[in-house]
C-alpha cells in the first residue's frame, strides 16, 4: 500500500513536469492549430541552459539559505527567458511564413526544427546523458512510510502556481483576451484591431517559457539531462494535452498529472519497459474514442 502512495507522489511530480510542457502545447495548438513538434526540444533546452549557468557559476554542490533561493529563482527565470526567446524566434522565422499554408507544411517544418535543435544539443553536450549538479538540498520527510522530497513538492507546487498565473493572465488581462479572441477567430480578431502577430508571438513566448521552467525543474530534479529527452517527453506531454482536451488549460494540467501517474504506476505494476507503449497507446485510444479529451468540448461539423 505504501508503494501505491509512493508511486502516487512520484507520478504527481513527474506529472507536474508534463503539465508544464503540456500547457505550452495546448496554448499553441489553441491559437494556430499547430502541433509544435519542437516544443519538447525547447523543454530540453531549458535544462541545458540551466546546466550551463550552473557550470559557469561553478555551482557543484548543495546551497542553502538565501543564495539558494536566489539561485533557484535566477536560473529558472533565466531558463524561462532563454526558452521564451527561442520559441518566439522559431515562430517568427519558421512558422509565421507558413501561417496560411496547408497544415502539412508547418507540421513538417516543426519536425525539421526539432531535428535541428536536437542535433545542436547533441553537439553541445554530447550524445550521452549528462549529470546536472544537484544544488537543491534534498530533505525528505516520511508520512506513513511514504517518502516525500521537498523537490517533489516544489515541482507540483510550481506547476499549479504557473497554471493559476496563466489562467489569470488568459482570462483577466487584455492581452489574454486578445489571445482567446485570436484562437477563436483569427480574422475577426484582426478586424477588431488585435495585432495577430504580436498575440501569437506572445503565446509562443509564454508557452516556451513554461517549457523552459519545466526543463530547469527536471534537470535539477533528476540530476541529469540528455539531448534526446525532449522527443519522448514532448510526445507524452502532447498526449497529456490531448487527454485533457487540447486548447484547454485546465485540461493540460489534468492531463499532465494523469500521464505522470500512468507512467509511475505503469512502471511499478507492469514494467519499466512498457511504460512508453502504455502512454502512447493511451494517446491512440484517446484520439480514436474521445479526441476532444476529458475537458474539451466536441464541436460538431457544420457544412
Amino acid at each position, binding site marked *: 500500500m505504501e508503494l501505491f502512495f509512493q508511486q502516487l507522489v512520484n507520478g504527481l511530480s513527474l506529472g507536474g513536469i508534463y503539465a508544464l510542457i503540456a500547457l505550452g502545447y495546448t496554448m499553441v495548438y489553441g491559437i494556430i492549430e499547430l502541433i509544435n513538434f519542437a516544443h519538447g526540444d525547447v523543454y530540453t533546452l531549458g535544462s541545458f541552459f540551466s546546466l550551463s549557468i550552473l557550470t559557469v557559476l561553478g555551482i557543484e554542490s548543495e546551497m542553502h539559505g538565501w543564495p539558494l533561493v536566489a539561485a533557484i529563482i535566477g536560473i529558472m527565470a533565466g531558463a524561462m527567458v532563454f526558452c521564451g526567446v527561442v520559441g518566439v524566434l522559431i515562430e517568427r522565422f519558421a512558422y509565421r511564413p507558413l501561417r496560411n*499554408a496547408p497544415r502539412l507544411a508547418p*507540421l513538417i517544418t516543426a*519536425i*525539421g526544427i526539432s531535428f*535541428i*535543435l536536437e*542535433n545542436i544539443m547533441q553537439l553541445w553536450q554530447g550524445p550521452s546523458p549528462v549529470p546536472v549538479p544537484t544544488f537543491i538540498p534534498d530533505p525528505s520527510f516520511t508520512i506513513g512510510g511514504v517518502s516525500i522530497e521537498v523537490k517533489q513538492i516544489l515541482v507540483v507546487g510550481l506547476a499549479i502556481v504557473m497554471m493559476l498565473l496563466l489562467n489569470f493572465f488568459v482570462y483577466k488581462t487584455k492581452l489574454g483576451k486578445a489571445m482567446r479572441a485570436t484562437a477563436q477567430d483569427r480574422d475577426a480578431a484582426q478586424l477588431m484591431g488585435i495585432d495577430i502577430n504580436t498575440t501569437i508571438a506572445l503565446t509562443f513566448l509564454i508557452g516556451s517559457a513554461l517549457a523552459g521552467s519545466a526543463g530547469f525543474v527536471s534537470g535539477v530534479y533528476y540530476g541529469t539531462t540528455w539531448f534526446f529527452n525532449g522527443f519522448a517527453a514532448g510526445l507524452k506531454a*502532447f498526449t497529456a494535452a490531448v487527454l485533457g482536451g487540447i486548447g484547454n488549460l485546465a485540461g493540460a494540467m489534468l492531463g499532465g498529472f494523469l500521464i505522470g501517474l500512468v507512467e509511475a504506476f505503469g512502471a511499478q505494476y507492469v514494467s519499466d519497459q512498457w511504460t512508453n507503449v502504455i502512454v502512447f497507446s493511451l*494517446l491512440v485510444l484517446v484520439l480514436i474514442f474521445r479526441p476532444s479529451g476529458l475537458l474539451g468540448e466536441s464541436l460538431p461539423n457544420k457544412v
Partner: protein
Amino acid sequence: MKFWTGLDPRLKGIIVVLVIALVPFVDHNGAHLNFLADASTFVLLALGLNIVVGFAGLLDLGYAAFFAIGSYSYAMLASGQFNIHIPFWVLLFLAPAITALFGVLLGAPTLRLRGDYLAIVTLGFGEIVPQTFLNLSQWTNGPNGISALDSPVLFNYKFGLQTLPYFYVGLLLLIVAIVIVHNLQDSRLGRSWMAIREDELAAAHMGINTTKAKLSAFALGASFSGLAGVAYASKLSLVSPDNFQFNVSIFVLSMLVLGGMGNIYGVIIGSLLLSSLERFILPQATIFAHNLGFMQVDFSQFRFMMYGIILVSIMLFRPEGLFPSRQRKAELHAAELDVALATQEQSMYEEAAH
C-alpha cells in the same frame, strides 16, 4: 534531347532499366554497387509512403512501423529463430500481405481522424511497434535482434554475402513498384484519392467510399514497406529494433518532401539524393575536412541537422519539392493563386443585378 522526349514512355523505361542493369559491368566500385542495392530499399519505402502521403494526402509520421513489421516478418519466417524457413521468393508476396493486414488493422480505427490528429496517431504507432518488438524478447531477441537470416536462393544459387544479386533483385522490385504506382495514379482509385484530398465531402457525394479509399492507400503503402522489409532484412541478414525508429520515418518523409510529393520520379530522385547524402556526401565531406587539417570534424554527426534544415528550407521556400507534380504545386500555392476569383466575381455580378 528532342529524340528522348519524343519516345514512347514505355520504351524510355526499358532503356533506363537496361542502362541501370549494366552499371555493375561498368562501375566496379563495390561501395557504389552496395549503395545502389541498399538504396533500392529506401526508394521502395519512399514510393510506398508516397501512396499514403502523396496520393491520398494522409500524413503518416510512423511509416517505419510497417517497415519493422515487414522486416521482422522475414526475420521470423526465414531464420533459425523459430526454425521456419519460408523461401525468399514466397516471402516477397507473404510479407507485403502481412504488412498490408496490419495497415488495415491500424488504419480502420484511425483513418477518420483529421489530418494532424492522424499524424500523431501514426507517430504513436511508430513508437509502439518498435518498442513492442524490443520488449517481446522471447520472440524477437530484444535489443540484439534476430540475426543469421536466410539468404535468398535462386535455382541452387545462394546469394550469401555478394552484393550483385541483391542489386538485381532490388532493381526488379523497383520496376514492379513503379509500374504499380503508375497504374494507381491514373486509375479510378487514384482519382478518388485526389478527390478526397481536395474536398472529402464533395468526394463522398461522387459515391466514393472515403473510408475504404483511405484504407486502401494505407494498406498499399504498408505493403510496399513489407516488400522493402524483405529486401532489407535478407541483405543485411539482421533485424534489430534500432533500425526502425522515428528518424527512419522522418528520413523517408524527407525524401518525399525534398523530391516532390505525389510525383513518382521526384520521390525517386529525392530518395536517391538523401541516401547518397548519408552514405557518400557526408563521409566525403568529413574526409575533405580532415585533409584540410580539421581532424575533429565529423559531418555524419550533423546528419539530423541536415535533414532538419532540408525540411525547413523546402517548406519555407519550395514546399512542392524539387520536382513537384503540377497539381501539388498548385495546391500549395493556392493562397497566392487568385482562388478568391469566384467570390469576387459573385459580388460583382450581384451588384450589377440590382
